[in-house]
């Protein structure tokens, strides 16, 4: 696409984006809700989005699918009061809807697969009912204007005439960073055009390209994005991405997940865990040096912990020796 067309496209999307931003009052309500309260809290929402990210990675869905799913989720949650117990169903419906409408090359998994892998407790008919509700409430037909839309357009603009810049400014990396930001609820309030621009600038600053930076200023002027707004989000993006890039690894919690194995393996695990030996320990060097005078054993070995072996069966350990220790 040539520069003129790009700018026109940008303009068109910019005018549309208002429709796709979640209701602010709804988002505020979620942010102020306490954990374990009556409604959905920010932490709940973030956890759900993390889960959706996991499923998208596993099934190989495109970034488009994931971003769209998050968008649908945020808009729905801001609009309707959802009970926490229904949140996982809502989340999965958004993901399924997004997968169905997004890029056709993604191998579509049936609702059954999603439910099974996602370890959810509801049925496929529950899922399709919820999908209908979500689509209806959001007047969702096929797509939405998301930060990703802008990111793709900005990227093309930044590349400009030299496609060799693709090596330096990686779209894949930008997409990963966008996904990282979306996992945090605070970014749902941002306008897609602003968020995407903040992200792009953050990366361009990192690779220190003067002319690409110029391009972004040009875009900002074209879309008439306020400096203050851009700066505000740029700071938040910087903070989020520095957390994302930290090499610290947290200890995951394996107990939250469901571990299903075949009967054979379950039997194997059971039998191998109960291999307690029934012969009492024989300490090296013997427990009573006076019992044998001309032994060829080395009796002057280090510490001998006999306390454990004295708990053996009665018949084995002579009574008169037990009293000695």
């Amino acid at each position, binding site marked *: 696409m040539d520069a003129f067309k790009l700018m026109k496209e940008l303009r068109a999307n910019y005018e549309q984006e208002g429709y796709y931003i979640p209701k602010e009052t709804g988002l505020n309500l979620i942010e102020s809700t306490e954990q374990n309260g009556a409604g959905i809290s920010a932490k709940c929402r973030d956890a759900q989005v*993390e889960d959706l*990210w996991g499923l998208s*990675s*596993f099934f*190989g869905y495109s970034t488009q699918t994931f971003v769209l799913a998050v968008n649908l989720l945020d808009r729905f949650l801001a609009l309707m009061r959802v009970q926490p117990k229904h949140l996982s169903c809502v989340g999965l419906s958004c993901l399924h809807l997004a997968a169905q409408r997004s890029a056709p090359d993604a191998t579509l998994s049936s609702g059954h697969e999603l439910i*099974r*892998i996602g*370890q959810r407790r509801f049925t496929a008919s529950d899922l399709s009912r919820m999908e209908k509700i979500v689509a209806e409430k959001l007047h969702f037909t096929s797509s939405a204007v998301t930060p990703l839309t802008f990111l793709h357009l900005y990227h093309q603009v930044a590349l400009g005439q030299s496609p060799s810049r693709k090596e330096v400014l990686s779209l*894949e*990396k930008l997409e*990963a960073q966008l*996904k*990282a930001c979306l*996992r945090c609820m605070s970014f749902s309030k941002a306008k897609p055009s602003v968020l995407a621009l903040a992200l792009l600038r953050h990366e361009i600053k990192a690779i220190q390209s003067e002319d690409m930076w110029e391009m972004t200023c040009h875009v900002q002027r074209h879309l008439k994005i306020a400096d203050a707004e851009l700066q505000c989000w740029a700071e938040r993006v910087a903070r989020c991405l520095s957390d994302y*890039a*930290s*090499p610290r*690894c*947290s*200890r*995951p*919690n*394996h107990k939250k*997940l469901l*571990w*299903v*194995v*075949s*009967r054979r*393996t*379950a*039997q*194997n*695990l*059971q039998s*191998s865990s109960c*291999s307690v*030996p029934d*012969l*009492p*320990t*024989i*300490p*090296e*060097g*013997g427990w009573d040096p006076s019992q*044998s005078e001309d*032994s*060829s*054993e*080395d*009796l002057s*070995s*280090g*510490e001998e912990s006999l306390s454990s*072996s004295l708990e053996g069966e009665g*018949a*084995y350990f*002579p*009574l008169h020796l037990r009293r000695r220790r």
Partner: protein
Amino acid sequence: ATQAMRVRPPGSHSATKKEKRYSTSCFPLSTNRDLQKLTPLSDVAPAEQEKLFIQKLRQCCVLFDFLSDPLSDLKWKEVKRAALSEMVEYITHNRNVITEPIYPEVVHMFAVNMFRTLPPSSNPTGAEFDPEEDEPTLEAAWPHLQLVYEFFLRFLESPDFQPNVAKKYIDQKFVMQLLDLFDSEDPRERDFLKTTLHRIYGKFLGLRAYIRKQINNIFYKFIYETEHHNGIAELLEILGSIINGFALPLKEEHKIFLLKVLLPLHKVKSLSVYHPQLAYCVVQFLEKDSTLTEPVVMALLKYWPKTHSPKEVMFLNELEEILDVIEPSEFVKVQEPLFRQLAKCVSSPHFQVAERALYYWNNEYIMSLISDNAAKILPIMFPALYRNSKTHWNKTIHGLIYNALKLFMEMNQKLFDDCTQQFRAEKNKEKAKSKEREEAWIRIENLAKSNPQFLVCVPSPARCSPVAMETEAPSIEDLQRAQRTEGPLVSRRSELPQDIYTTQALDSPRRGEDMLTPHDRL
């Protein structure tokens, strides 16, 4: 997951009951077998008891036939059985009855009853025999043997037992003969032998080095010569209790035992019979001295089964037990080769192997080790996990792979994203490479097509049809030539140059003996 265990009712199959197989070792039957029932020990005055005791012990040195003639000498067999039973009770409930003269009598009685050459195995060997399914061959003389074992054990365990006195009679020769019996097919006998040898090892410090050496020899012979011995599991169980009692720092002899004997035991085909005991020994060693971890893990990886999947599952069991006790500093030394092997296991088309490997992710300690070293480990595991999330045939495995990937995601998201990108990049590179290769072939083809000789060389217009090969069927010319001759088609005898000696020999045949010279006979 359902945990129902299939329990086999002992010795019963559908319609035909499998007969219990008995064998008896070649006991030399005593000539004078009629035993007079002696007075009960409780009826005799304490001063007379020792003499009577010895009499009964000597009675029990008479041997009977239980196999070829099971109904023979029933009355006298009962006398012996009752005497043995009585003596078991006698030494259990009485003090100071084990006097010095008793020792040689007891040892002799045991030796006479027990020490024998074991019969050759009547079970099929090799792949046909499944130690877990097939019935073992049992000792027919068990009614007596059991009581002799029981008695000897009580004798050893008695508070009055004095190793200093006994060591004159329980010597190296005795121990050697005892060890020979471990090859018995009767599991009840092996169980008694195990306990007996365990007690002897505990009480006779002077015999310990000898016992260890002889056990080593049995293992060496098993690993490198015969691959057949019924008592490996029992011997390993005894060794487990010995290893557990090792003093620190570990002696060099013991370390060598681990590396030269225990680890090679993993190689043998019949590993399933004794694997739990072997794994226990190995883990005990590592609990005693963690610096042995690296050689142990590397050896396991070296011996890792490549074509035997049930064995692979056993190795995975053992490896997890080792990881349960591993020091973090040792873990770092072995993590890369270890996870490379795990990546292969996770990709295995055998569902039990893949499941067992993936179940490692449900182990909290292993997870903590992995998360501390995720930067090194995730790049190794990721491709195997991600690839199989798409292609594995088994649904349960799918779910487990998801769990594993999810846990990795929780550890560090950026690392996960980087691995994903890396994976995609490699895949694209592969695609590009194969595309390039295909294009190169097409270019060669086009080059060949542009050669003016092209149309001459290619016989048939359709490039895709298979080209006919030259077979041995006669060609058109051959057929035409044959039709010109008279009669049906006959195959012509090949015309080979004739050897003159062969022709002469065929014309005037001579007997073999005439032709052989003394030199030919060796």
